[in-house]
């Protein structure tokens, strides 16, 4: 069957006068790893939040497994969200809870699992991202950036979701830690067989984790293809982005002197 697992059709989202998503179309097939690249402030995080229902688009539709989830509310939205895991750009770890309780949070609160059982799963998930049980007792503020990302990753996969979003998983990390995170993402996704959307502007990361790549510019997907096509996309915007050149069709909104 060829029905996409996640599909966005003509999604529009504005904040006041500012149009962030301008008729965005994207489809991701089941079990694929989609990487969305694009500059800062082009609406990548907003796109993920629209899919999760954290933001409501003004128009357009979002389908999960063929079901229209746009504007879904209440219990049905909760059911849809059970299938998702998300690694937030800033980690978004609960700083009032120790690391293990962060990882076990969805199991304890969302699924009412007993504390001890949830704790064991949490320790196991922490081990999967290379963190020992002693880290579980620390608080998020006591961790380095790389460790926080790993805890965020463990929390995102704790409930074995079918769909996982990674919002800039390697931003702000040194290149070695970035590669560690990339490997963890690839491993976790393989183990779970999940469909993923990752957002990044780190091309090394994109090449490592992507099956497919899409580029977002001014709130639209302007190019989409498989990961090995990225180097000869024939698209000037993509060329400029992956080569990191200041000159080209993409204009930064900087006032020229």
């Amino acid at each position, binding site marked *: 069957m060829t029905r996409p697992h996640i599909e966005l059709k003509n999604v529009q989202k504005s904040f006041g006068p500012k149009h962030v998503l301008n008729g965005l179309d994207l489809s991701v097939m089941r079990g694929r790893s989609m990487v969305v690249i694009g500059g800062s402030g082009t609406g990548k995080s907003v796109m993920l*939040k629209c899919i*999760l*229902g*954290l933001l409501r688009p003004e128009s357009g539709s979002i389908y999960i497994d063929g079901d229209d989830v746009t504007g879904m509310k209440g219990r049905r939205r*909760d059911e849809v*969200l*059970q299938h*998702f*895991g*998300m690694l*937030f*750009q*800033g*980690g*978004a*770890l*609960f*700083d009032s809870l120790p690391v293990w309780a962060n990882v076990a*949070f*969805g199991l304890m*609160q*969302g*699924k*009412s699992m007993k504390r001890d059982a949830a704790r064991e799963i949490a320790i196991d998930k922490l081990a999967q991202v290379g963190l020992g049980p002693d880290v579980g007792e620390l608080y998020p503020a006591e961790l380095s950036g790389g460790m926080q990302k790993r805890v965020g990753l463990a*929390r995102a996969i704790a*409930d074995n979701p079918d769909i996982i979003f990674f919002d800039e998983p390697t931003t702000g990390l040194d290149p070695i830690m970035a590669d560690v995170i990339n490997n963890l993402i690839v491993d976790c996704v393989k183990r779970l067989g999940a469909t993923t959307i990752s957002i990044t502007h780190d091309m090394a990361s994109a090449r490592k984790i992507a099956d497919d790549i899409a580029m977002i510019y001014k709130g639209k997907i302007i190019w989409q293809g498989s990961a090995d096509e990225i180097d000869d996309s024939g698209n000037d915007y993509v060329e400029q982005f992956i080569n990191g050149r200041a000159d080209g069709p993409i204009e930064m909104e900087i006032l020229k002197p």
Partner: protein
Amino acid sequence: MNFLAQIGSVVLALIAEVGRVSLFAKDAILRMVMPPFYGRQLLAQMMRIGYYSLPVVGLTAFFTGGVLALQIFIGGSRFNAENLVSSIVALGITRELGPVLAGLMVAGRVSAAIAAELGTMRVTEQIDALVTLSTNPFKYLVAPRILAAVITMPLLVVVADTIGIMGGFIVGTESLGFNSGAYLKNTVDFLQLADITSGLIKSAVFGFIIALMGCYHGFNSRGGAQGVGRATTNAVVSASILILTTNYLMTSLLFSG
């Protein structure tokens, strides 16, 4: 701009804000009565809001009772009414000063703390993260705080009433020369149950206002540290103003019959 237009837009903004707060309160109350219930959160919040407010509320009540005794004695001596000290202290504390001053002190402590905490959770995407972990933030964050404040405020005011009357008693007997037995007898004979219960009813309402304002402003804070700071100030100011205005309304309702 046109002067009238300016007044108009302020009034419209105010009405819109009242509408938003009412919707927020409705959601919070609905979530309070529907399962699941987060008992652990409720207990933690009762400790934070009630127990840790005891020192500041007790201190405020003690000195207010004392100064009230002093003022009534001095003022009353002008028309030979010094012996009214005990009864007026008791009335003033139980009906008005106990609930209102406790409300204002707790508003300063608790509304601010709640707004800062939830505001930080909002701007660091922790509230979004709750949603992705299948946990309703209204149930998990707002409902326990409001419930805890509504339960603990009356308990705090019972303590405030007792300590306030004791403050008056100590000043009355130690420095104004009242006979301690007569002072106490006057207090007990004069007080009616309605004086105390009206204060307790008021304080439950103040508890609701305090937590609601903290949660509302925290939940809706935007834009980093500055936004959280603004939310904190707005929470305290609006809670204080609402306490003073509803206090007047409730006094005129409760004692109209």
